[in-house]
């Protein structure tokens, strides 16, 4: 795979590095990398892999650009709000480097499409924001024997590791399940939309991921397998922990991957959670239209969406005890809501410790789900 004149100019600064050179650049040009998630981590990963000249990059993400993405997801601007991220990313990346092939998949990675999609790529980047997809990526990569580069973040800290790596001697290294065989209870591991994140953090962690992808492809430096690093943006500390492969945990992944299409990763990752009553946005919409008597409780303290449901009362999550008497006790339906349905679920769980809670419901998916229905109604 020879480099054309423009490529020789474009990549000049890295071609003169002895660790990359022409051989490294050709290896990059031949490489196929799939980036799963085009959000906080995905944006820096994509920009760096595009710039370094990975020959073919796949981007899968089902989401559309929203205003709360823009402070950290630098592939997008106000003019892309409402566009599919995978498509918007490609439009920007094409301009950054026209010498590479880009494939967009504006869909969710699922047990239906994962094997077919991942089998087309050599290195996989986990830039997702949820556990069901992380375990799904792990299991398919174990099944297909592909290395994947984990990145995950929480407020000011991030984790990076190269997982399921096979070294030159053919030794296989740890997987995600070797570190965390079982998923966390969702309420103990909130994501960025609930817990917040500082904009630069995914920039740092995503670039560390891209760096590992480059090292894997070019066979240079020390690849981060058999260890996980944790970066803390506040203290500037990087802690590196050695991890071991656990064959029992790996087998668990293999078993799932071969029966994959029937395996429900969502319920696997929610199985550790206490069950609560939930109502969908569609059902709540109908009940409100039918003028049924429902008490609506907004539990947000820093709203993302500047809207609220009609006739709501406010009881912030951290102020429940002081306001507990405001919750209706006549046995009628009470629906708690927040932006994404996570903090309101927490409040319902807290109230479940007491009795008489059959009438307490969480709005599933929160206002984000509610607004989707309103938007659909407007479009009709």
């Amino acid at each position, binding site marked *: 795979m020879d480099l054309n004149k423009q490529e020789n100019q474009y990549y000049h600064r890295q071609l003169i590095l002895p660790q990359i050179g022409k051989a490294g650049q050709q290896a990059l040009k031949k490489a196929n990398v799939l980036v799963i998630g085009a959000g906080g981590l995905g944006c820096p990963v994509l920009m760096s892999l595009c710039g370094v000249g990975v020959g073919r990059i796949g981007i899968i993400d089902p989401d559309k650009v929203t205003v709360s993405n823009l402070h950290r997801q630098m592939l997008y601007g106000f003019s892309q709000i409402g566009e599919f991220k995978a498509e918007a990313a490609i439009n920007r990346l094409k301009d950054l480097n026209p010498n590479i092939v880009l494939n967009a998949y504006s869909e969710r990675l699922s047990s239906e499409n994962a094997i077919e999609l991942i089998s087309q790529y050599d290195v996989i980047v986990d830039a997702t*924001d949820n556990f069901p997809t992380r375990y799904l990526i792990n299991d398919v990569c174990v099944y297909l024997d592909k290395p994947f580069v984990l990145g995950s*973040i929480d407020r000011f800290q991030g984790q990076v590791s190269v997982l399921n790596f096979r070294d030159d001697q053919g030794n296989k290294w740890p997987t995600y399940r070797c570190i965390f065989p079982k998923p966390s209870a969702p309420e103990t591991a909130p994501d960025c939309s609930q817990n917040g994140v500082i904009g630069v953090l995914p920039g740092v962690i995503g670039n560390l991921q891209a760096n590992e992808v480059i090292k894997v492809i070019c066979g240079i430096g020390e690849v981060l397998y058999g260890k996980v690093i*944790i970066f803390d943006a506040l203290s500037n500390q990087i802690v590196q922990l*050695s991890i071991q492969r656990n064959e029992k945990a790996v087998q668990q992944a293999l078993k799932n991957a071969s029966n994959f299409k029937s395996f429900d990763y969502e319920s696997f990752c929610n199985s550790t959670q206490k069950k609560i009553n939930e109502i969908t946005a569609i059902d709540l919409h109908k009940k409100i239209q039918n003028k049924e008597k429902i008490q609506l409780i907004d539990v947000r303290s820093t709203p993302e969406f500047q809207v609220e449901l009609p006739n709501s009362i406010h009881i912030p999550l951290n102020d429940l005890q002081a306001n507990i008497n405001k919750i209706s006790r006549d046995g009628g339906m009470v629906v708690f809501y927040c932006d994404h349905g996570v903090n309101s679920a927490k409040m319902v769980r807290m109230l479940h410790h007491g009795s008489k809670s059959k009438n307490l419901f969480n709005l599933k998916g929160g206002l984000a789900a509610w607004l989707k229905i309103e938007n659909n109604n407007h479009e009709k």
Partner: protein
Amino acid sequence: MKVNVIFFGVLVDLVGQSMLTIQDADNIDDLKMKLVTRYPGLEGYTYRMAVNQQMIEDNKRLFDNDTIAMMPPFAGG
């Protein structure tokens, strides 16, 4: 004898600080018991422990000045 425990992610919120010194924990099980007694909420959390940067699978004897890291999974991306 004392050991240093460093916490990451949500565990920092639970404990209220990122590092603690614990006296007289002879082994990992003993340390976990002491931590759960002090922070009962810890039982509901998923995390892995590493002794002197080496992730451990089972109980392990601890020595003076060992550093134990407690790492939960992070969801965000």
